[in-house]
């Protein structure tokens, strides 16, 4: 029974990773950049929800919406101010370093505004826990909501990309930016939209993450951010189903590794598995193999 409960915990954590990984993977697929500040947007989302619930006293649902709105605006502002001017820079590393700068900026702003002490986050989930198998197996409300949210987001996003014009424009830009521009697609607008969606997802992930692990500091986003990035690479960066599979597998590996091998070595196990996967299949589980032309 304990194995099944570990597995469920893993899926729950993995669903959060998957939602964050979506943000990474979409931005990478379309803007071809690693957004190192993504983890810190999660942290901002966490604080936004925390402040609006505890200081402003709004109800949890409204707090989540507020957090999503704040993160979306933040994502758009960062994209406009810091990333767009560097889009055609001669080295792709320039925008990567700028993203690192943005990450430091957000962390230190949060440190100044909210202090370094850990805030304890009250769960936004009111769904009761489900008890199965005569009390041997308990599935918490947070787990149910997280997994459901992940599924809804996945289905919604897939429909959005395949059925709407804006979604098709995203696909076109990710395929060939120059050709998309010639077809009359607003490339800058499409990239901004991608950042907006990624940041909104980060806010949702923040609320879910903080509900399950209720401690909030200015560095909360950093490790889940890196893990989600690993998940995105694991599943094949640029692929949306890849982010889901990568995220959930990573969550399961992490929780099972903690439970059965060694709790201190969980991170080493996660990263070790990543290396092995990439060596066997260098473009990730569902990544596209791109042929190099001479």
């Amino acid at each position, binding site marked *: 029974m304990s194995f099944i409960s570990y597995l469920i915990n893993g899926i729950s954590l993995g669903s959060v990773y998957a939602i964050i990984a979506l943000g990474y993977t979409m931005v*990478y697929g379309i803007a071809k950049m*690693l957004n*190192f500040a993504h983890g810190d947007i999660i942290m901002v989302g966490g604080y936004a929800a925390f402040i609006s619930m505890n200081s402003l006293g709004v109800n949890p649902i409204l707090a989540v919406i507020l957090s999503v709105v704040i993160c979306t605006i933040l994502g758009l502002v960062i994209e406009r101010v*810091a990333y767009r*001017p*560097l889009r*055609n*820079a*001669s*080295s792709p*590393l*320039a925008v*990567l*370093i*700028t993203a*690192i*700068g*943005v990450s*430091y*900026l957000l962390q*230190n*702003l949060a*440190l*100044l505004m909210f202090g370094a002490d850990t805030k304890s986050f009250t769960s936004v989930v009111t769904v009761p826990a489900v008890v199965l198998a005569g009390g041997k197996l308990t599935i918490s409300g947070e787990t149910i909501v997280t997994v459901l949210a992940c599924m809804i987001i996945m289905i919604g996003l897939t429909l959005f990309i395949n059925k709407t014009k804006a979604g098709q424009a995203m696909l076109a830009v990710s395929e060939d930016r120059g050709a998309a521009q010639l077809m009359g697609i607003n490339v800058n607008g499409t990239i901004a939209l991608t950042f907006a969606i990624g940041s909104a997802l980060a806010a949702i992930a923040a609320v879910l993450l903080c509900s399950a692990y209720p401690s909030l500091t200015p560095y909360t986003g950093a490790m889940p951010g*890196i893990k989600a*990035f*690993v998940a995105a*690479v694991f599943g094949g*960066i640029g692929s949306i189903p890849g982010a889901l599979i990568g995220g959930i597998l990573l969550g399961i590996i992490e929780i099972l590794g903690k439970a059965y091998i*060694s709790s*201190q*070595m969980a*991170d*080493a196990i996660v*990263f*070790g598995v*990543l*290396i092995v996967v*990439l*060596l066997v299949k*260098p*473009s990730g589980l569902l990544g596209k193999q791109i042929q*190099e032309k*001479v």
Partner: protein
Amino acid sequence: MKKLKLNKTTKNNLITYGIVILAYIIVEAMLAGGQISSLMKGLLVPLCVYVILAVSLNLVVGILGELSLGHAGFMCVGAFSSAFFSKCTAGMMPDGLRFFLALLIGAAIAALFGLIIGIPVLRLKGDYLAIVTLAFGEIIKNLINVFFIGKDANGFHFSMKDAMSLNMDGGDVIINGPQGITGTPNDSTFTIGVILVLITLVIVLHLINSRDGRAIMSIRDNRIAAESVGINITKYKLMAFIISAALAGVAGVLYAHNLATLTALPKNFGYNQSIMILVFVVLGGIGSTRGSMIAAVVLTLLPELLRGLNDYRMLIYAIVLIVMMLLNWSPKALEMRERYSPKRLLAKRKEAKEAK
């Protein structure tokens, strides 16, 4: 008297060495005059460490053209292996000899790790290489934290659980998991640091200007073309990677012998540190050895110089970083700089005068 004729690269290299030696003389003079605060004195050896790290990472990022985010991992390997050696042999040989051997061991073991990681990893390209090197750095940091090695009359004991399970018979614990290594002999000095910086520069600059260096740069510029003229891609990639790892190991040795307690924290050996080194390289100008060196010094001093601003210093640091990147790399900003550069304005004025 025949005038000594130097070609451009030799001249450039001599300027780079000159800067280091001049900086050393100035700092020593200021130290003798007592004009350097104790805080700054504590920064002298770390400055050398960061310069070595930046110059060696530049070899991979700038010259080989591959993004590595695990440089702190090699530094960590060098630091722990050499500290382990120094602690085991403390008192068995003269300090100078021991430190020299520690340097060789740190460099050799870091190079070995560079080889082990490099062979599989260099098959990957671009961002995938970046993420695997990042993962490697995190694994090293994580493993060091669960390592326990003790030494007693029966020899060495090893465990990956805790200090109790070493089953020690007296003796002492050398590597104590998260508590790391305590009591490493304090061998690093500013002078040794500067000598190591110079050796690093000689190795790197010599490599860049050699036949091998040009082969490495040709891989960066066009891998397929390089391969088609018969350059052994794997060999040269590995060469750059291993030399870079060994030099990072040297930086680690210098770092370890400057501290009383060596622990593997996210702060000193985590991915943040690797990224910090990458920031030095990129801000200094990718591919420019002298630039990496200067950026490492400026960016290490900057947070300390801003110390008066207390809480705001890291915030200002972040803003400076973003603004510098935007000004140096954005095509629009470059165009503006070109248009309003003093040189051009002067030329314009001259032109106007001549037209009259």
